[in-house]
């Protein structure tokens, strides 16, 4: 009996350290965000704890223009980043799936873009988007795509686009590697059969590759949403949310509320909203995966 207990106990000992860490430093903060969103916690009463104030924080935050702008920007940012990352990543994966010398080197070297710390990428692209001496303006004017230099990060109409382009650059290699891995798991004989049947490339893509890749693409899209949704560093470095909130997204708004205004209660509201959105995405994903398995 005691031996049995020791046996079970030693098994749990493997598990316990990580479990305790996750409970204290990961689960508790999530719960804390929700609790604090109903309190008037600021820097002033941080030590003593905030008072329960019902839904006041929610009416304050959700009613502001900044919140709706941030929500809109988050959606535009996430959708356009993921769309272009996956399309370009797919095209690159098709190219790198062919057999040629040193292809493994080319597959991985592009990941440098994804691995570089965002602070560095952010300041690098600020330089590339520079209005007077930036390379991007130079290329676009010499190709006659734009007639005069654009102040990419300095005006409301283009700032978000510039940040989206930066993030697309970062995410392309990541998506390319994942799509490539998915492609390599596809059965080869189906393609041979399609060629024998006289399908052209577009038909093969539409009727064979896409349906076969569907489950993996779903995973990649969900991963993409989650990683893109987190955007913070690029915005802090490149625009600081401006000009006039043109690049404020939800996580950045939450940061401003907590660490610029020190209104922890209101930042808890933003965190709770983000949590709800992510949970909805996760449930849609689980639902689709279940449907996929049934088929």
């Amino acid at each position: 009996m005691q031996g049995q207990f020791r046996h079970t106990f030693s098994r749990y000992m493997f598990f316990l350290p990580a479990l305790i860490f996750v409970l204290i430093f990961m689960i508790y903060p999530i719960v804390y965000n929700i609790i604090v969103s109903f309190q008037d916690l600021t820097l002033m009463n941080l030590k003593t704890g905030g008072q329960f104030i019902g839904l006041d924080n929610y009416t304050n935050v959700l009613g502001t223009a900044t919140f709706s702008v941030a929500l809109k920007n988050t959606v535009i940012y996430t959708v356009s980043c993921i769309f272009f990352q996956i399309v370009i990543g797919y095209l690159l994966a098709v190219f790198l799936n062919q057999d040629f010398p040193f292809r493994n080197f080319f597959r991985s070297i592009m990941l440098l873009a994804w691995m570089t710390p965002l602070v560095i990428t952010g300041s690098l692209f600020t330089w590339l988007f520079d209005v007077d001496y930036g390379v991007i303006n130079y290329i676009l004017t010499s190709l006659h795509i734009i007639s005069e230099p654009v102040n990419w990060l300095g005006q409301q109409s283009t700032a978000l686009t510039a940040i989206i382009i930066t993030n697309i650059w970062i995410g392309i290699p990541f998506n390319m590697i994942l799509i490539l891995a998915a492609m390599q798991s596809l059965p080869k004989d189906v393609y041979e059969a399609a060629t024998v049947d006289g399908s052209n490339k577009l038909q093969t893509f539409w009727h064979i590759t896409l349906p076969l890749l569907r489950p993996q693409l779903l995973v990649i899209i969900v991963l993409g949403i989650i990683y893109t949704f987190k955007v913070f560093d690029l915005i802090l470095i490149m625009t600081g949310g401006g000009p006039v909130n043109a690049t404020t997204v939800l996580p950045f708004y939450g940061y401003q509320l907590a660490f610029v205004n020190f209104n922890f209660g209101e930042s808890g509201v933003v965190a709770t909203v983000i949590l709800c959105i992510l949970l909805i995405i996760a449930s849609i994903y689980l639902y689709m995966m279940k449907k996929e398995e049934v088929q």
Partner: protein
Amino acid sequence: MRQYSLKQYMLLLGAIIITMIFLFPIYWMITTSIKPMSDIFTSPPMIIPGTIQFDAYINNLIKDQSLLPYIRNSFVIALGTSLFTLVLALPSAYAMARFRLPYANAFLLILLVTQMIPGIMMAMPLYVMFSNFGLVNSYTALIVGNTTTALPFAIVIMRPFFLSIPKGLEEAAVIDGCNTFTAFTRIILPLTKPIILTVLTFSFLFAWGDLIFALTLATDENVRPLTMGITRFIGQYGTQWDNLMAVATIAAAPIIIIFLVFQKHIVSGITAGSEK
């Protein structure tokens, strides 16, 4: 040597061109840092540097040594995070793969959900917690903060690896007189070198690049890492792009070196992380 056809060499040429265009920003960062100021502000931009000089590096590493403490802090935080993550993740991923623990699947789901929460949203509660314990402005706070990002990823990629090791190995070890713990340390650990390297590399990279926790959990320059150092230089240098790009290149150098050494582990880590 394998023989390649002309078409395959054309594909190679295509790959070189695509890679050069794609990685141009990195090239531009490095060349900006070694150009004299007058060559930086030219129109059209000077794609191939005319004169090469290392003034910006001498300025920022030797003449002005204020960058060095940031580099040290980054190493302490990144190494601390990768070791702490490994110590927590290794046994628990093993346990989740091997023992039929009740709730292990629930734990996995919780990890996947917490992985989704933006770091900046974890920073506020952690800030409140650490300021109550007097831990704001400590390496501990930054290492714990970064571990919250690295740990879920580490467990998620390690668990399938342990599942792929045949169970008979430990059973044989137990028959030979090992207990659960020694079976793990003597038999399983030596087999896990590649995945340990993957986890160490990724957690190091996560922590090295972190700005969120550095910005929120440390207000004191003494513990702030290089990413915060860069933001200070952005304020200080404004549009002195040679200095700024030199600092950026210095900060990117460890990443590039680690990448070149551990390429294989990084690619396998990314693909493993996307499997369920």
